């Protein structure tokens, strides 16, 4: 049943731009934000809220811009390298932040992300300040593409990446390491008494989440063709948490459901009302009050009665 739903959803996403071309950009951005929100959701499993994950999102997009400026022009190379660099940055930042819990973890992520934001904005000579940096249309496997063709390649590539990464994260969360991550939330003492190094469990999760946000950031950068410091602003981080909670942190699809829902809602609502924030706020209140497992919970309900 769930497999059929998934297939229908994927087909709908793939077909949508054929019916309405403007959807291609919207959906590409939804996937980008969904990947980053999935990163936030991974950490939420351990009960750790990162209100700063836009820093990895932005770092990766800037990574692409710098690498492109440095003369690398291939899409795949740019994507992989920028994500690897973001993962390494995540390892460094994570090694420091995973010692903290609860509000301290949340706020330190916020603080570090604001340092990133300030650096991107102030180092004018390097980053172009608030004007940001352009990301040129890359070649794909050595083939020079027109911009519209590249955007189509980017979209279908993102859909494929979403599936692959979604599957990998699903397996990670289902592995002992993923279960240990949820266990951090309920009983760190028992984990230690199982001989499990809690710091290592959290560091892996932090790196995974940084890599996910990095993929999202790179895709967003390519889709927009520009990266600006606002990518790292705290409201962008808040948005990712919102997406994760709205979609539901119980499973991998939640983050994407949340992202698609919000992106589509935004485009629709923004078209004929400026009450966008009101609508999103109301939707979030509704979800938190009536759907504690998020929108995804609607699809997975039943098995275990809530108690």
């Amino acid at each position, binding site marked *: 049943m769930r497999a059929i739903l998934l297939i229908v959803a994927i087909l709908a996403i793939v077909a949508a731009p054929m019916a309405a071309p403007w959807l291609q950009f919207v959906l590409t951005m939804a996937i980008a934000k969904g990947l980053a929100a999935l990163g936030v959701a991974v950490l939420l499993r351990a009960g750790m809220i990162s209100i700063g994950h836009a820093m990895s999102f932005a770092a990766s997009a800037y990574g692409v811009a710098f690498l492109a400026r440095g003369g690398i022009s291939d899409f795949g190379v740019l994507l992989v390298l920028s994500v690897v660099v973001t993962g390494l940055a995540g390892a460094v930042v994570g090694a420091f932040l995973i010692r903290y819990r609860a509000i301290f973890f949340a706020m330190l992520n916020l603080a570090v992300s604001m340092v990133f934001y300030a650096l991107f904005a102030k180092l004018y000579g390097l980053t172009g300040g608030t004007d940001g940096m352009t990301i040129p249309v890359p070649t794909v496997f050595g083939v020079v593409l027109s911009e519209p063709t590249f955007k189509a390649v980017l979209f279908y590539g993102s859909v494929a990446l979403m599936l692959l990464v979604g599957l*990998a994260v699903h*397996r*990670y969360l*289902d*592995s*002992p*390491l*993923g*279960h*240990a991550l*949820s*266990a951090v*939330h*309920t*009983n760190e*003492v*028992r*984990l*230690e*008494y*199982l*001989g*499990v*190094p809690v710091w290592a*469990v959290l560091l*892996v999760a932090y790196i995974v989440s940084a890599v996910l946000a990095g993929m999202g950031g790179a895709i967003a950068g390519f889709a927009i063709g520009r990266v600006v410091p606002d990518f790292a602003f705290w409201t962008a981080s808040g948005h990712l948490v919102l997406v994760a909670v709205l979609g539901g942190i119980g499973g991998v699809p939640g983050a994407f459901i949340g992202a698609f829902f919000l992106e589509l809602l935004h485009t629709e609502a923004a078209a004929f009302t400026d009450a966008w924030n009101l609508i999103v706020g109301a939707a979030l209140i509704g979800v938190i009050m009536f759907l504690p497992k998020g929108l995804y919970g609607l699809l997975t309900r039943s098995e*275990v009665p809530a*108690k």
Partner: protein
Amino acid sequence: MSASILQVRDLHVEFNGVKAADGVSLDINEGEFLAVIGPNGSGKTTLLNLCTGYVRPKSGSIHLDGRAITGLSPRVITRRGVARAFQIPQLFSDQSVLDNMMLALAAKDGLWTMLRPLALPARREEATALLDLVGLRDDKNRVSRTLPEGHRKLLDIAVALALKPRLLLLDEPTSGVSTLERFSLMEALMSALRTRNITALFVEHDMDVVARYADRVLVWNAGTVMAQGHPDEVFKDERVLKNVVGVA
């Protein structure tokens, strides 16, 4: 006498002036089932906290198999083969009974299989066998938070057994377990310890359980070992009867 696995020498620790361990020395011998009895607040749990590195002693030393473990973390001491079941069960309350068990088994194997599921068939089987042993078969799929207190206690013990320890420390294993289930739990536990060559120390308030199962008894009072020996001898001791058995 057989070789000692754990040697504790002259441990001192105090909390806000309360001496929870006041010059404690003791040995746990290979293969024995050692009971620790003593009044409430005499420092029995603190002894387990000290032996597993959860609390650091102000002075004194602890050796496991002749190697010093004083000041090491619970994680490292666990890795060296010491497992613990708690007075208040320490479980992953949002996860199922089976997942609690499988995570313990996976921890023993090393967690670093990112892309293989926790619920491997062999692991599931092993977990189920251990749950059978402690009598939790029917609770397998329940979320551990929803178990009655006694069953949480049993699960905590099964989790400790899953670590295949050499030395098992049990803090009041039968408290919260109904008197009906108490002796069947002890029988299951004793057979598990024997077949797996596990040495164990258990803190216990039920003197019938102690008299029937313990090879040796340590009587704890106000942070020190007041008496020790075979249950028959210890229960004849006037001071013990007055201070511990009467009140425990």
